[in-house]
């Protein structure tokens, strides 16, 4: 456990020592804050009985879009830098397992992600407390839980892709492309019908989040995301292990 914590601490430290963390958190808050304001101003003053709920839903959906652009940058340098600097060799000749390395890095990425989300809870929370009719609490809860799970899934995918290359930019681009592809599956859901449509619907990363934003917190969604994360953590561990077999 000491190893995992040491890696976690180091990764988190690295995020916050470089401008990366601040830029990402800042950008996220600026974008979501801006649109939150726009939505509130435009729709809360109209005679929309359900405005707060509508605003919440819109913001939560916006989250998904912003994640797509920003999260690749959280994970892009996880492994690329270690390989380039030769520090991966230090980690892999020390008495820690690949799993500890991968989990330490993943938890650090999740922590940064949580740091991005947390401030938005202030404005959403405020709206929830001071609006009538308030959006259902289930929606707030579901929204944030879904965001964490959805973001976690994207981060686990980004981590895996980062472990495949030594180049940060390639990692970021691959991750972004992968995210887009996943989003595209969602379009397939609408196009296809019947069984194919249902399968795609289950597989769609966005779809489950959509349910969460409606306040539907169900085990299928949670299981989906947790399985997704576990799968990509596993693949990352294998990928890291495979570095031992590469040419000196």
């Amino acid at each position, binding site marked *: 456990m000491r190893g995992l914590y*040491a890696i976690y601490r180091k990764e988190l430290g*690295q995020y916050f020592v470089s401008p990366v963390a601040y830029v990402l958190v800042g950008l996220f808050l600026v974008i979501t804050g801006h649109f939150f304001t726009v939505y509130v101003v435009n729709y809360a003053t109209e005679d929309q009985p359900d405005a707060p709920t509508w605003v919440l839903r819109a913001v939560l959906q916006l989250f998904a879009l912003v994640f797509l652009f920003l999260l690749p940058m959280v994970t892009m340098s996880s492994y690329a830098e270690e390989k380039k*600097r030769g520090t991966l060799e230090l980690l892999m000749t020390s008495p820690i397992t690949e799993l500890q390395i991968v989990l330490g890095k993943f938890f650090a990425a999740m922590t940064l992600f949580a740091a991005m989300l947390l401030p938005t809870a202030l404005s959403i929370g405020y709206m929830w407390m001071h609006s009538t009719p308030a959006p259902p609490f289930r929606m707030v809860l579901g929204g944030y839980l879904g965001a964490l799970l959805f973001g976690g899934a994207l981060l686990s995918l980004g981590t895996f892709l980062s472990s495949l290359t030594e180049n940060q930019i390639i990692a970021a681009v691959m991750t972004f492309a992968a995210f887009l592809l996943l989003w595209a599956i969602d379009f397939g859901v609408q196009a296809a019908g019947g069984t194919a449509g249902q399968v795609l619907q289950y597989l769609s990363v966005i779809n489950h989040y959509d349910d969460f934003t409606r306040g539907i917190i169900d085990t299928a969604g949670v299981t989906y995301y947790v399985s997704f994360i576990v799968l990509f953590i596993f693949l990352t561990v294998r990928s890291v292990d495979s570095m031992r*077999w590469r040419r*000196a």
Partner: protein
Amino acid sequence: MIEVENLTKAYGQVTAVDHVSFSVNKGEILGFLGPNGAGKTTTMRILTGYMPASSGTARVAGFDVFGDSMEVRRHIGYLPEAPPVYPDMSVAAYLDFVLRIKNVAADKRPARIDDALAKTSLGDKRKTLIKHLSRGYKQRVGLAQALVHDPDVIVLDEPTVGLDPKQIIEVRHLIKNLAGSHTIILSTHILPEVSMTCDRVVIINKGKIAAVDTPLNLTTQLKSGQRIQVEAQAPQEALQDLLSGIPGASRVQLDSSRGEGHVVATVEAAPGQDLRSVVASKIVARGWPLFELRGVSMSLEDIFLELTTDEAAQPQPPSPAAN
């Protein structure tokens, strides 16, 4: 402390390490000498648990490097070719991180950090960010992390690269002081380093071991008589023919820069043959004045070149006065 038997590592068609066997006793300093690409780094990476061998076994502190990798890693400190440092950390923070991943308890860490900083003369750089250090200092930080957790075995891949002469001497002192309580393997292609610091030397070339012995034995093994230097007053070509014609003589080199018709010739003899008396009597028999005849022992550099040079491409033998 370290036993390597028939260790082999192949990458597809290329065999980087070819049935290498050697052992290192507790407290000994073993030097790994070889040209670039000889297989030194690969062997070290196998020993430190970074990569698995294709076949053969290696044991460190009694633990199998493949079967008990975690145990082996607990007992080893490793400095790879490039110091594995994080630029954004301070020296002390970095060493603390290394101690954590080497599983050293919190109460022991501060003392270990102080100790490592003292040994590598990094005391006043404790709070400096590693990215602000010069190359030589970075190398020292790399050295510090290899010994900070007080491992039984220390593996150093070219530890003095990038250091200035003063720092090199300090590092060699450090290594010599560490011996006894630690077992050390270091690789280098700086020959004097090996003669000065190591108890024994393994010369490795193209993945195969070319020689294993103490530096002293290696240099005196090919004893005087094996190479002869003779100074005579003789026509160069005639002398060349005469000497080349002696059975067992090879690589006859002539140098007439001494002037006054004097020619200095070096003759190498086949192993075990002492050609001194033959050379002397032949020269005298021709009536040429013989001024000097002596056996020249080969320096480690000569042996290194001898053992690691292809038959096809013979370089000029270095002058016996070199080194």
